[in-house]
């Protein structure tokens, strides 16, 4: 996209997330941001840089290292009428708060027979690719998507990074937002009036007739690169950004497959039990007879993430792997 016209501006994914947070805090006096180093440090990924100065320590609240404690406090604050945005630095540390997320936030409304909803938004960085090794590189958004009672969203574009937060805050129930840390520096353009976006539907990012790639987050970028390369070889790939992992918008990808008859799922999660498996199963259950070839998955290899660069690159889905897998699949005849 060009940046010529006055209605558009260029910014990073990081800036877009920050804008979303700032706008939410300005628009609703009950919204506040809480987490480790969100204030004085400016956020471990510099997402909240400057917000403490702008809004003060009550609404940009630094917490101690107490993931279970402050996530639970966020749940309580939500029950008490606030609209907390709780930042967990990365999904890896969210395992310390798994009990509060899964045993409390996800079930409070149901257990109370509809009396107590929990309007909390929990943001966290996810993903590998930065040589941070096994304890800092997980992609567990698809794994959390197994839990009833929470919504899971994962912005892959500047527009979604900017617009999903407000919609999540309007949701009466817990929403987890997963930001792939590899995307924070990604630049893109946005209209000056860009605002909230829906978090219920997947989006067809590129139309094609030969095969459907179903993906989300950082893998969307790689999939679109691959589609570009494949196009030069005459293979027309339809690329779908799931955007929301729970609840899954099946309709969009099922409709696409009814047209393309082939599907590849690209997902940074470890293969076994990843969200890609759920998608494959749903395709099997709904459009089995439309398939010209088995659905394939490209996921991370099933190892704890290694530090060495060449190892880590081999673990993660990469553009070239997508290209060759699609070539193989389209070659295969039904």
């Amino acid at each position: 996209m060009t940046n010529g016209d006055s209605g558009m501006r260029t910014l990073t994914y990081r800036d877009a997330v920050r804008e979303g947070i700032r706008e939410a805090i300005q628009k609703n006096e009950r919204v506040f941001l809480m987490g480790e180093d969100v204030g004085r440090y400016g956020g471990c990924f510099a997402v909240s840089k400057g917000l403490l100065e702008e809004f003060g320590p009550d609404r940009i609240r630094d917490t101690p290292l107490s993931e279970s404690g402050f996530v639970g406090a966020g749940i309580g604050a939500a029950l008490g009428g606030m609209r907390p945005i709780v930042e967990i630095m990365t999904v890896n540390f969210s395992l310390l708060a798994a009990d509060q997320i899964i045993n409390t936030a996800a079930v409070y409304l149901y257990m109370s027979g509809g009396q107590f909803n929990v309007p909390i938004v929990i943001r966290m960085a996810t993903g590998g690719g930065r040589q941070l090794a096994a304890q800092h590189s997980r992609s567990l958004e698809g794994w959390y998507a197994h839990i009833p009672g929470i919504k899971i969203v994962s912005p892959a574009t500047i527009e979604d990074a900017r617009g999903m937060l407000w919609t999540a805050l309007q949701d009466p129930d817990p929403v987890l937002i997963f930001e792939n840390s590899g995307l924070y520096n990604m630049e893109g353009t946005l209209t000056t009036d860009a605002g909230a976006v829906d978090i219920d539907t997947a989006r067809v990012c590129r139309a094609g007739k030969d095969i459907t790639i179903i993906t989300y987050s950082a893998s969307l970028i790689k999939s679109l690169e691959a589609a570009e390369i494949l196009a030069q070889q005459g293979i027309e790939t339809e690329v779908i950004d799931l955007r929301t992992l729970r609840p899954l918008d099946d309709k969009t990808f099922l409709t696409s497959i009814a047209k393309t008859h082939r599907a590849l799922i690209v997902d940074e999660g470890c293969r076994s039990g990843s969200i890609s498996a759920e998608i494959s199963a749903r395709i099997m259950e709904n459009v089995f007879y439309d398939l010209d070839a088995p659905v394939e998955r490209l996921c991370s290899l099933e190892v704890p993430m290694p530090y060495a660069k060449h190892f880590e690159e081999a673990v993660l889905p990469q553009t070239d792997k997508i290209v060759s897998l699609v070539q193989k699949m389209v070659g295969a005849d039904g």
Partner: protein
Amino acid sequence: MKTQRTGKRKAPVINHTHALHLLHGMSRIRRLEEKCAELYSATKIRGFLHLYDGEEAVAVGVLEALTGEDAVVATYREHAHALIRMGSAGTILAEMYGKQEGCSRGRGGSMHLFDEKTRFYGGNAIVAGGLPIAVGLALADKMLQRPRVTSCFFGDGAVAEGEFHESLNLASLWQLPVLFVCENNLYAMGTALKYTQAVEDLASKAASYAVDTAAVDGMDVLAVENAAKKATEAIRTSGKPFFLECRTYRFRAHSMYDPDLYRSKAEIEEWKKRCPIATFKQKMIDQGILSDSDIDTIDRDVAREIDEAVAFAEACTWEPLEDLTRFVHSERRMS
């Protein structure tokens, strides 16, 4: 950071109405729990059932110190707190029956009683899981400048959990109006306090969080009420948290599944001599504050109330299966 020891203080003389009121509250709890045990054997109530017999003075005494604006966060052993807070036993029993008129629509059962109207946040079956929630409720009150106290009940076993540590630090660091009430009944299921805590004096732990603290005889409703009122006053003036340890004992097994083999009959009998209801009755009679007929009236009222509650629960209905998935998510968007 001061520590009071109010357990020994001689109970102040109180008036007739208040004595009736306290005894009535404790008697209602005892009767409800007895009925629950019956109904469990009759398989009307299922799942886990944790009864409160012996600990009545704690719920009654502490809740006496709260206003309707204050919040209550309790555990799976929360029938007493729900009854005192919510007023009526009917929807509580209906909940344990699994009926849709139950206070949690039959979705929660004994461990998950809730009531929005009275700010009763339930019913949490994850030990120590309620502490961070209470911290958050108090944080909301502070940020919205509402002069409220959030009370949080938990057992001695919960003190070993990391969430206890994180919550006390947060509440103190951020100066939040939380009343932490430790119902120390000396056992976490079958494990005695001495096997779970390197330091058995739980009240003393509050010091390392700079939280004011008091330990009170949890078998003495007046002592508990007194300590709880002091604590809530302190919280309302300072805005800071307070830790109240109530030393009590459960007369029954941990749950209906528990053969109760980890403590001696003698120990149980010793504690039963300190029954909060019997001792209070005796004291009130000795002091001429209550008469035998007062006590008969209470017993009759309470028996009637619980019988009516059972009748209500029996008459309640099963939610249709098509409503099973209601309330996984809210039915309305946010305003």
